[in-house]
């Protein structure tokens, strides 16, 4: 019996879909059987980030309405040997096409065959959020070091804590810019965790590589050299229960510094 994890944030644009794609990929890299579920019906894009868009035949709504079997709608990621699948969202209807009970049923069925179900939640706290949370056992809240994102994360955590069937949510702080955090122009990690008072499961630095990789339909987690990739892989290992210390930000700073030095050295 697998575990269903919902990736949520409240606010849009903080990196839920990217995080979902990369955690799913990183878990698959660890040899787990993973199914990604996109619940952002009407505005799907997990398939785009994963580079699986042109292979979609059926979608989530087709499954729920009984037009096809689950395994027919699942899109297999060929980069992994049968370890990573995607259940895409429908694009032609909207979020009211699915009810929370139906989602719960669907996720329960998927849990039989997969080790991890990673559910990508839409922004907001309405129907789409309720659908995404209905079947989940755990939740990961993604936020960025911005006041508005932290405020929305706080709201979402409040709602998640009311869900009796779920464990206490975990936190990912995404898009950290170390120089801004140092200068005090951005909230720092301690401030955020103190404010939200939930367990921090990972921090991801702001990295242009992530955008480049997403645009190419290749999750950054596949590239072992990127900092963000290591961050996502660490998060996956923490999900698996390993205890790995957070990447110290100081070191990242040093990296930037040494890169600069190298850069000038070359010149």
């Amino acid at each position: 019996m697998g575990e269903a994890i919902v990736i949520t944030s409240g606010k849009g644009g903080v990196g839920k879909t990217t995080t979902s794609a990369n955690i799913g990929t990183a878990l698959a890299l660890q040899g787990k059987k993973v199914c990604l579920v996109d619940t952002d019906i009407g505005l799907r894009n997990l398939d785009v980030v994963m580079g699986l868009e042109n292979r979609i035949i059926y979608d989530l709504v087709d499954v729920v309405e009984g037009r096809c079997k689950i395994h027919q709608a699942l899109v297999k990621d060929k980069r992994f040997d049968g370890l990573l699948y995607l259940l895409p969202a429908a694009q032609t209807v909207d979020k009211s096409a699915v009810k929370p009970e139906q989602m719960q049923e669907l996720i329960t069925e998927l849990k039989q065959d997969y080790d991890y179900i990673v559910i990508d939640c839409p922004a907001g706290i309405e129907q789409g959020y309720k659908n995404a949370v209905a079947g989940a056992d755990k939740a990961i809240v993604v936020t960025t070091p911005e006041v508005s994102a932290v405020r929305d994360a706080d709201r979402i955590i409040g709602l998640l804590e009311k869900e009796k069937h779920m464990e206490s949510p975990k936190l990912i702080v995404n898009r950290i810019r170390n120089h801004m955090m140092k200068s005090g122009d951005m909230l720092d990690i301690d401030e955020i965790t103190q404010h939200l008072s939930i367990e921090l499961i990972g921090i991801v630095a702001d990295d242009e590589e992530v955008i480049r990789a997403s645009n190419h339909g290749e999750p950054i987690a596949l590239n072992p050299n990127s900092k963000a990739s290591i961050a996502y892989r660490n998060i996956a290992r923490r999900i698996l229960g390993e205890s790995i210390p957070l990447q110290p930000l100081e070191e990242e700073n040093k990296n930037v510094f040494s890169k600069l030095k190298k850069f000038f050295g070359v010149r």
Partner: protein
Amino acid sequence: MKKRQNVTIKGTKGGLVLHLDDNCSYQELKRELDEKLSANTRTQDDRHLLPVTVNIGNRYLTDEQMEELKELIRQKKNLVVDGIESNVLTKDEAKRQREETEVVTVTSIVRSGQVLQVTGDLLLIGDVNPGGSVIAGGNIFVMGTLRGMAHAGCNGNEQAVIAASNLKPSQLRISDCINRISEAWQNEDKHDMECAYINENHQIVFDRIQTLIKIRPNLTRLEGGH
């Protein structure tokens, strides 16, 4: 056998006290009261207004019945009802009284969008995050950081206070006073162990928590002891 008196009238310094027996029927009581008072007024000096306290013992009277008795007494020209005293309370009333005076302890973090409301005093062990609100009929004490909105004395109690281990609210309300907190205040580093109350100019002011000892001695609930 001498018939028992259902209505006894006693004169005190503060006026008359009417002791109404609590065993007889209400109708009987009313009749006798009317009789007694009518008999009495003749001997009284008409210019003098007499306050009357009615003691109804262990009898429970509905609001209408109380009004009826008051009316009956008021009809006698120089009598004015000061109050009706009873030894009994309805369960609802007792519950309401308890709720109004009790300190409700809550351990939780009040997050954005959440509202925590109590009738009496609130003792919150945890934080109030921005966008969250705590509302109490009485005082609010936060063992943690208060960053959201707090409304003490929401039913019009101007004596209510708000105190927090770390007082950095976005807005404070006490009774009908509203105080928007300046950003400068919030950005100041230390606001440990502070309180807010309404001063004599009807404005919400902040101070050290220790000042409450002087300005709100009634907060002490401890009885006896030296």
